């Protein structure tokens, strides 16, 4: 059974090669219930590879990912049967893509996008699905009058909110986010971050946020993993890592941020 005295998800010795090219090597960490972990690093440092491996979207070349399920206790997500893994992916987990078009069904309305996961787990009452979708639109601060509009008529920020609502509707316990604020302008970014921070703390979600934007991690994450060339070079509490970076690469990363 799931409980609070062991990590929700733990990665041990995660290694992934793309042929001869290294994706990530020997990455280990734990995520506890309700904790937000940030993974930062430059492009090509293996952040997204790690995220894909721990969210079962990519099989690691070596290493294990253990997830503490609600019913069966800890399981190795790359060893369990495909049906149970896919069930986890659409109930217990959420995945927020950088580009909302990867995570949304663009040809169906916002309401249907939010309702999809509910219908996938067996909701068959139109009125209730719609009610839930309305309340989630409200929670992500969207106009409920746009429920029946197609996502392509939404702005980038709204699409990203919709994607978040769509993921959270089945009350997942962990959300994986790949550059959730990438491609948005700063004011929209700020509001989205505010929203994410509120949702994460209100719902007691655990989250893994991959980003190259240190400001995002500063705001969202409790703990930080700094990656470079596929390996973790530094890890610690966010403020500690950002305010007192130890590794030369982290120092470089922190010092390259502009302070207007």
């Amino acid at each position, binding site marked *: 059974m799931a409980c609070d005295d062991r990590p929700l998800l733990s990665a041990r010795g995660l290694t992934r090669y793309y042929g001869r090219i290294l994706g990530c090597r020997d990455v280990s960490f734990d995520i506890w219930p309700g904790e937000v972990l940030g993974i930062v690093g430059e492009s090509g440092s293996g952040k997204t590879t790690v995220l894909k491996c721990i969210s079962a979207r990519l099989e690691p070349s070596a290493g294990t990912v253990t997830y503490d399920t609600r019913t069966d206790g800890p399981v190795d997500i790359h060893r369990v049967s*495909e*049906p149970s893994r*896919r069930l986890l992916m659409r109930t217990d987990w959420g995945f927020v893509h950088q580009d909302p078009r990867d995570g949304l*069904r663009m040809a*169906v*309305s916002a*309401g*249907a996008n939010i*309702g*999809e*996961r509910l*219908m*996938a*787990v*067996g909701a*068959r*009452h*139109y*009125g209730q*699905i*719609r009610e839930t979708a309305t309340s989630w639109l409200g929670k992500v601060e969207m106009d409920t009058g746009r*429920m*029946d509009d197609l996502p392509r008529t939404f702005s980038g920020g709204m699409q990203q909110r919709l994607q978040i609502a769509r993921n959270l509707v089945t009350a997942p316990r962990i959300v994986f986010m790949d550059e959730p604020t990438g491609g948005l302008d700063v004011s929209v970014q700020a509001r989205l971050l505010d929203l994410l921070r509120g949702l994460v703390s209100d719902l007691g979600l655990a989250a893994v946020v991959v980003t190259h934007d240190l400001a995002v991690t500063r705001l969202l994450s409790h703990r930080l993993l700094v990656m470079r060339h596929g390996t973790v070079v530094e890890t610690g509490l966010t403020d500690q890592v950002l305010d007192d970076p130890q590794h030369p690469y982290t120092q470089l990363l922190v010092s390259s941020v502009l302070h207007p």
Partner: protein
Amino acid sequence: MTRVSTVAPDGGYTFAYLDEQTKRMVRRAILKAVAIPGYQVPFASREMPLPFGWGTGGIQVTASIIGREDTLKVIDQGADDTVNAVSIRAFFARTAGVPTTTRTEDATIIQTRHRIPETPLRASQILVYQVPIPEPLRWLEPREAETRRMHALQEYGVMHVRLYEDIARYGHIATSYDYPVRVNGRYLMRPSPIPKFDNPKMDRSPALQLFGAGREKRIYAVPPHTEVRSLDFDDHPFEVQKWDQACALCGSTASFLDEIVTDNQGGRMFVCSDTDHCDARVLAGHVGSAAGDRDPGGA
């Protein structure tokens, strides 16, 4: 006019056109399809002497199951006298020499495009559907590998997304043909483009129902007495089409009606889409509002 007609077969063809090895291959696919209701079995679809999309799948299935003692009926949109139906009937009359008929009761094999006959089918009959697109998830999920996985894992929630979208846009489930069904509580199936009016006829039908998709190279089946349930929502249950008129020729209020434009002044009439059913009713003395416009049995 006699309803059952026999034509002398053309020499030089194998019985029912397909060679025996091909028929065995198709029959093997059919057996597997019957064993797994609703599952799409791949088969090596052959080139037929008519284009894909004109019923090549149905023809191959019919050719593989037809025997000398069979009587064949072919309908297209319910009618026995449209081009597709006439050509396919003539094809089997010439290549197999089997008797053909327009009467549902007399037929042992009925090949159909877009309708199920109004006359209830018997246990000794086989209904063969011509299927354009066999995959019910096709317009929702473009990847074939992924749709197969979804079938394997019964991940059918996305089909309800489509129905949800219908209700959100039109206030009711507007899908009116090719309405998705669940066969035997397991596989999601596309019943070929029959109107949803016909969906209830598939449920626990005593006749064997075979589906052939020639271009897409798939065969699937609903064995006799198998549950076929149309998808719906608890608060928007499945409903079939209704008309506020009766058939203008036979006065039927229980059959699927076609709207026919009769002149350039907006004149129109509703008549049964199943011509055999309509004719039989007219012969039995039923009359509609436009009775006399059509010569019964003149199809």
